[in-house]
């Protein structure tokens, strides 16, 4: 199993970045924390290049939208240290008005399409990305469909309203 404890990773990050690392938690043993948009590049490159941690594998980049929050868009990175067999989850929250975040393509080539997908569905602007264009949706789409304000179905349909189900 994991060769390095989550506590050791947190200690290392805290000594290096101090109060830039917030909201540390371990849901189901997977270390998760939040960081700021200014620190994210540093954090990713530190995690990747640190000789002890070696988070050299980018598992996934995705996003989530919480419309009721002030910083509504969350970008979520999953990193994996294959040598230590441990994963880590990093979140960065940004506003819909200013959805800019530095790209991770400088560290991993594989981030290219993951970021394009995230841009396509959430409108996250990865600054410095070599070719940030839509990937799965059509080019002339004007909205970012995975944001919560866009409903799946025709909003005029009434047969699926919650009150018919007692909710």
């Amino acid at each position: 199993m994991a060769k390095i404890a989550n506590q050791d990773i947190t200690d290392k990050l805290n000594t290096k970045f101090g109060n830039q690392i917030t909201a540390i938690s371990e849901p189901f043993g997977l270390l998760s924390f939040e960081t700021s948009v200014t620190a994210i590049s540093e954090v990713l490159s530190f995690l990747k290049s640190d000789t002890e941690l070696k988070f050299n594998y980018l598992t996934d980049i995705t996003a989530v939208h919480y419309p009721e929050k002030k910083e509504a868009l969350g970008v979520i990175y999953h990193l994996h240290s294959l040598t230590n067999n441990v994963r880590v989850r990093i979140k960065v929250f940004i506003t819909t008005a200013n959805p800019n975040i530095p790209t991770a393509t400088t560290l991993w080539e594989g981030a290219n399409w993951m970021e394009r997908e995230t841009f396509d569905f959430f409108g996250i602007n990865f600054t410095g990305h070599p070719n940030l264009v839509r990937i799965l949706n059509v080019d002339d789409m004007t909205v970012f469909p995975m944001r919560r304000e866009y409903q799946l179905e025709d909003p005029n349909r009434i047969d699926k309203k919650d009150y018919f189900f007692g909710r």
Partner: protein
Amino acid sequence: MSNFITETSPNRPYYTDNDPQGDLTTLNLGPTHPATHGVFQNVLQMDGERIVSGVSTIGYIHRAFEKIAEHRPFYQITTLTDRMNYCSSPINNMGWHMTVEKLLGIEMPKRVDYLRVIVMELSRITDHLICNGILGVDTGAFTGFLYLMEEREHIYEIFEEICGARLTTNIGRIGGFERDFNDIAFAKIEKFLEKFPPILKEFETLFNRNRIFIDRTSGVGAVDPETALNYSWSGPILRATGVDYDVRVNEPYSSYQDFDFEIPVGTKGDVYDRFILRNEEMWQSLRIIEQAMEKLKKEPKGIFHADVPEFYLPPKEKVYNNMEALIYHFKIVMGEVDTPKTEVYHAVEGGNGELGFYLINDGGRTPYRLHFRRPSFINYQMYAPMSGGMLLSDAIINMSSLNIIAGELDA
């Protein structure tokens, strides 16, 4: 190169072959080309038979699964996972069930774990059979493909016996299986374990030391481990480069730690290595299934789901005759069961690599956010860059051996 990617439409490149004296030709490979086995478009710039550069265009069968999943209760999302990698849908189904079980903290009985392992390894074999069979077809050897398809049919008959479906299986439920494997299913698995090895052996004899096949595949699309990791490759194609990363070993799920099997790795990461590696993985899968069948004999019979009445639908006759069962049935269908407000990432080793499910739950009837980490999507992005400098016919077999499934690519 200036007219290669246009400013107005960077994602959907088109070519303007205006210069009749130019050296380069434009070739639209796909989206419905018979050699690509799926809806893939690659716009290639050719210098004779050699590819100079290319752009992959994807999204032709995008069906917005992540958006749909936000509007469906957990047990209805299984059918969405079927339609991602439709060559090995049981692995997707099981991966999703296990994600939800991890979220809900359901402990599975060992017998269910072993039954799941059997189903998953059978579907890994179907996945690899398709990939290696098609690779044979693309290199000009049709016979092996036909031999293998017969065996895939036998595996589909096993699935049919277990769940009633063949391709999009919707197999199992959250908390176990919908019904126990019947005797016919076990008999068919036993028969398969007996009949398949000689056929796989024959298939290997046809290809492994075949001069034409080796000349055709060796050295094609060779990738070094650093590049593969940099592009976040996973699955057989990563292991063919020499990286021994397999989710079944790194983070054992469904009691894989109880089994004795090996993870084959390659050295060069070329098409030939991937072919040999997939064959070897099929042998290992057979080993695992045999062990699982042995282990099942020691487990108490008739257990096919965990005892979680809040999440596992009771049998219909109980719903009509029994108060508690009726209540649970109602609560499950109407989504009245409380679920923890947290997030979970669960990965399984799919046919093509690490298939991950990232689920953010807000305690409601449906997931707040569900993201699929689809190995085909992430593996495919190296295809166009690595095709530069290749012969067109090599690029075709390279795509076959990457085993990109359009449904998983586009989700």
